[in-house]
């Protein structure tokens, strides 16, 4: 029986083959099996999208209509989650626009054993969190008479994060060349070696050393260990996939971020496509809406078609359209038309929008064949 099904592996997708294998009884006769398989192939081909079907439009409506319900629902979900994460329509817009700066970047970090069982979970979480000098000090003062900076350190905070004054001074040294650092009990005094430093420069130095990176992963501003199922994971605000994957206690296989661009640069374009699908589908599902995943897959495919992640904006996928009129019909028409006129662009009228504009049949559905078949005159 399996041999007969094997012949059809090229004609049917794997999921259908699998369910055929599962559901057909082994005692079936060859003739009947053949009949079933032929029938399945016929049904499958029947259910495919026809050539010329305007699937983009169908996807747009299928995602767009439920999204109108989402705006209202967003209200209830905002702020309930452990950490404030953008959900609902704003998040979908953010993904589909291909924004590089997210309003709430976030990561889910999975841990190796034994840490995933809760060992040292708080300590690990804190070690990821980015600590700057500002976080462990009580205040920065500028002494105008001596032209020096006084940094008061917080003993308590330093002990919690296991810092000593010496380590602080060490990490400060690179940032403050030309300064003498005098350490007191729990304060430090920075004094310039050169005499002719003015107050303005001193102020700039003060602001700079505030942000000195002391410890942790750059960009991770908050950490929150939570229990999911029967293992502990760390949810973060702020994202830095590249550096987090390198950490020893992290299980890199499942660790993820909600920043699509970071995924594209660390894991490649295919991973980014999958991430777009997961993120968009996750939002839609969490709102209790029902959108077929095929529509989202289509959008993700279009966004990742060029090898880079492109948003559905006039700077993204729309700018890649070959037709001037199609681009002009989306946003900023004058700019496109003027630029096209300057370089002498030609519009071959091969797509939908430009043909609507000049009142011609559009090449979709039954309008398509006339463009595909070569008619001999």
């Amino acid at each position, binding site marked *: 029986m399996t041999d007969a099904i094997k012949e059809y592996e090229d004609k049917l*997708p794997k*999921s259908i083959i699998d369910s055929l294998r599962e559901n057909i009884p082994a005692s079936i006769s060859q003739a009947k099996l053949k009949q079933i398989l032929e029938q399945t192939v016929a049904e499958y081909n029947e259910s495919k999208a026809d050539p010329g079907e305007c699937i983009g439009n169908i996807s747009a409506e299928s995602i767009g209509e439920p999204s109108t319900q989402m705006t209202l629902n967003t209200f209830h979900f905002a702020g309930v989650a452990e950490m404030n994460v953008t959900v609902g329509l704003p998040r979908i817009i953010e993904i589909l626009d291909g924004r590089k700066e997210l309003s709430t970047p976030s990561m889910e970090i999975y841990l190796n054993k034994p840490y995933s069982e809760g060992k040292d979970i708080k300590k690990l979480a804190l070690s990821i969190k980015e600590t700057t000098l500002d976080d462990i000090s009580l205040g920065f003062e500028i002494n105008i008479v001596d032209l020096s900076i006084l940094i008061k350190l917080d003993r308590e905070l330093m002990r919690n994060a296991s810092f000593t004054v010496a380590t602080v001074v060490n990490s400060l040294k690179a940032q403050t060349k030309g300064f003498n650092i005098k350490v007191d009990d729990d304060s430090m005094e920075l004094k310039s070696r050169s005499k002719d430093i003015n107050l303005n420069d001193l102020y700039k130095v003060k602001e700079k050393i505030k942000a000195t990176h002391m410890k942790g992963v750059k960009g991770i501003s908050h950490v929150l260990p939570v229990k999911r199922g029967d293992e502990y994971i760390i949810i973060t605000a702020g994202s830095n996939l590249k550096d987090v994957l390198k950490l020893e206690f992290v299980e890199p*296989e499942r660790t993820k971020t909600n920043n699509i661009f970071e995924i594209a640069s660390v894991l490649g*374009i*295919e*991973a980014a496509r999958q*991430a777009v699908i997961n993120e968009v589908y996750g939002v839609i599902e969490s709102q209790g809406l029902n959108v077929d*995943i095929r529509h989202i*897959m289509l959008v993700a495919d279009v966004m990742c078609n*060029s090898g880079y992640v492109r948003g559905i904006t006039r700077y993204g996928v729309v700018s890649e359209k070959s037709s001037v009129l199609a681009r002009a019909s989306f946003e900023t028409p004058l700019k496109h038309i003027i630029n096209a006129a300057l370089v002498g662009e030609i519009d071959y009228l091969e797509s939908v929008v430009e043909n609507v504009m000049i009142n011609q049949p559009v090449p979709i559905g039954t309008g398509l064949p006339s463009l595909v078949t070569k008619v001999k005159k």
Partner: protein
Amino acid sequence: MTKSGFDIKKHFLVPKHTKVSEKEKSEVLEKYHISVYDLPLIVKNDPAIKELDVKPGDVVKILRKSPTAGEAVFYRCVINV
């Protein structure tokens, strides 16, 4: 603290990438009636194909896990930058 080089192929988001032979490449192009640059693109220094030793114009076969089809085959053409 850090370990050297996590193999990104093991990440759950990354599907399997393989280089396509010249023969299979022409079969694919024949099947869809297109030229190689009509395929979706992938940049040469994409992290997922770093170890494949591909040059621009090559075709990469991607075996995606699909929630609808179980497994889906996808092709991308390698381009410079």
